[in-house]
């Protein structure tokens, strides 16, 4: 680790730190969050020379079942996962629901922003025929508490932007002042007010950000 600068500093994280934190996050998720498939680390191919690996975390094909009655309640957000290993077409036969429920699929990517030195959550939703879901439809799948948060407060926005690596439009969650609330998290969680250790950085980050999109993490991950 570079002595001239810490890997986690002031709520922000370096690129190297992100790579370490991502692995730790994925490991803990795999061990403690068994109702979900694991996150995959997607290396950026052209950057893996010189042993300086860069990449992002990917969690795909998460099924959110939306009933026609209304938006999903936070507690009972019915999230299941399509464990299919294949990247291409969605296996329709995995779904067992009544005809009225429409299944929405979600992909989530945790990507490092070199400009802001914090992680960013990109996501997209699509129906079983692969057709992208609009933001209005997606909002109906979010926990109702998130929707009011998004509409009323200014601390977080969802915008449609191009995925930094995939040349496709995705949605990006912008929590304002990420580095500030990460600092708050670290101050409140440790006795001497030290920085969050790098292995827990993404866990802490996701404990807040994930909730906006209805993904909760079990407490065991925070240890």
């Amino acid at each position, binding site marked *: 680790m570079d002595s001239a600068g810490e890997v986690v500093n002031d709520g922000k994280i370096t690129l190297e730190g992100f790579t370490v934190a991502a692995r730790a996050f994925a490991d803990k998720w795999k061990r403690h969050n068994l109702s979900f498939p694991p996150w995959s680390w997607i290396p950026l191919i*052209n*950057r893996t*020379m*010189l*042993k*300086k690996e860069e990449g992002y975390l990917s969690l795909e094909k998460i099924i959110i079942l939306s009933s026609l009655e209304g938006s999903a309640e936070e507690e009972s957000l019915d999230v299941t996962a399509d464990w299919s290993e294949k990247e291409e077409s969605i296996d329709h036969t995995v779904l067992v629901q009544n005809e009225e429920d429409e299944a929405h699929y979600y992909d989530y990517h945790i990507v490092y922003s*070199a*400009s*802001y030195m914090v992680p960013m959550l990109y996501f997209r939703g699509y129906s079983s025929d692969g057709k*992208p879901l609009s933001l209005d439809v997606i909002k109906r799948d979010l926990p109702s508490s998130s929707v009011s948060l998004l509409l009323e407060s200014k601390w977080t926005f969802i915008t*449609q*932007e*191009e995925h*930094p*690596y995939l*040349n*496709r*439009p995705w949605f990006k969650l912008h929590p304002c002042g990420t580095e500030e609330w990460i600092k708050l998290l670290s101050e409140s969680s440790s006795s001497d007010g030290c920085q969050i250790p790098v292995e827990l950085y993404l866990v802490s980050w996701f404990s807040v950000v994930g909730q906006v999109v209805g993904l909760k993490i079990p407490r065991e991950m925070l240890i």
Partner: protein
Amino acid sequence: MAANEEAMKYVWEGAIPLQIHLHKSEVASHPAPPPALVLAPRIGYLPLLVPLIKPYFKDSLPPGEDSIWFDYKGVPLKWYIPTGVLFDLLCAESERPWNLTIHFRGYPSNVLIPCEGEDSAKWNFVNSLKEAAYIINGNCKNVMNMSQSDQEDLWTSVMNGDLDAYTRLLPKLKMGNIEDEFSRKESLSSPVSRQGGGTEIDVAGQVKTARIPVRLYVRSVSQNFENLEDVPEIDTWDEISYMNRPVEFLKEKGKCFTLRDAMESLLPEYSGDRAQTSGEEEADGSQETRGEIKLVRIQGIELKLEIPFSWVVNNLMNPEFYLHISVLVIGPQR
């Protein structure tokens, strides 16, 4: 006129002659309309040209609502990239006029983010400006603290290519200084006051590191070429690597951080220094040859890599304070 002002004038006056053709599937008149000839500012954006172009074609369009987009040889153009950058990147050998196709229907929303004309272009500009501010100053307060009307005026000056108006507004933006010992005058942004954070100061009060907003577009071809006209045409954006990553550099006394140094920090796999190579032999005894940077283009100029990077930044950056660099490389051979 200070060197810096002269360079800014050059950058702002740069323009690409475009020849815009209506896509044949949308020609509803006979005979088909001739192409529109438009001079596009390098620092501008394609959606801003639509009011100039549309009159040429409006009588030829099929009925319905417009959703406008452009393509170059079938590749949909990303409207939020400055026009000059698109040209430098997609035309290995400069094509003048640059032949583009305009569409009023069938927006490829699976590959392009939506565009609502000038509003989208403005939103994109302001966001890029905020990001650049964060990189340079360590926060975006300078942009957030600008009054709504000043922000509007700043955008309008860019939209109209009005350098005088832009220059008058810059002090209100209070963007931190990017030190440049090679300009006779300081850059036109705010004089001495740094708004904090972005540049670290060591004990002796010397500036240690600076972060520079850079957007790098790397086009990789697999085979070497003698002439630019031999470079194959581009088929999709997947052939281009986009890196939105600040260049960080240490200001060391007596040492000059060059464009080459900046390129090596962004693209270490194309570094020319053989001694640094991972140089490992593959299991079968073959060795990877490094890729090679063939061309570095900024504002349409092919730059020598020995040029001091701070000069490049201060003189060739875009109005949102980003330096856009188009690079053509030969990919590493195995």
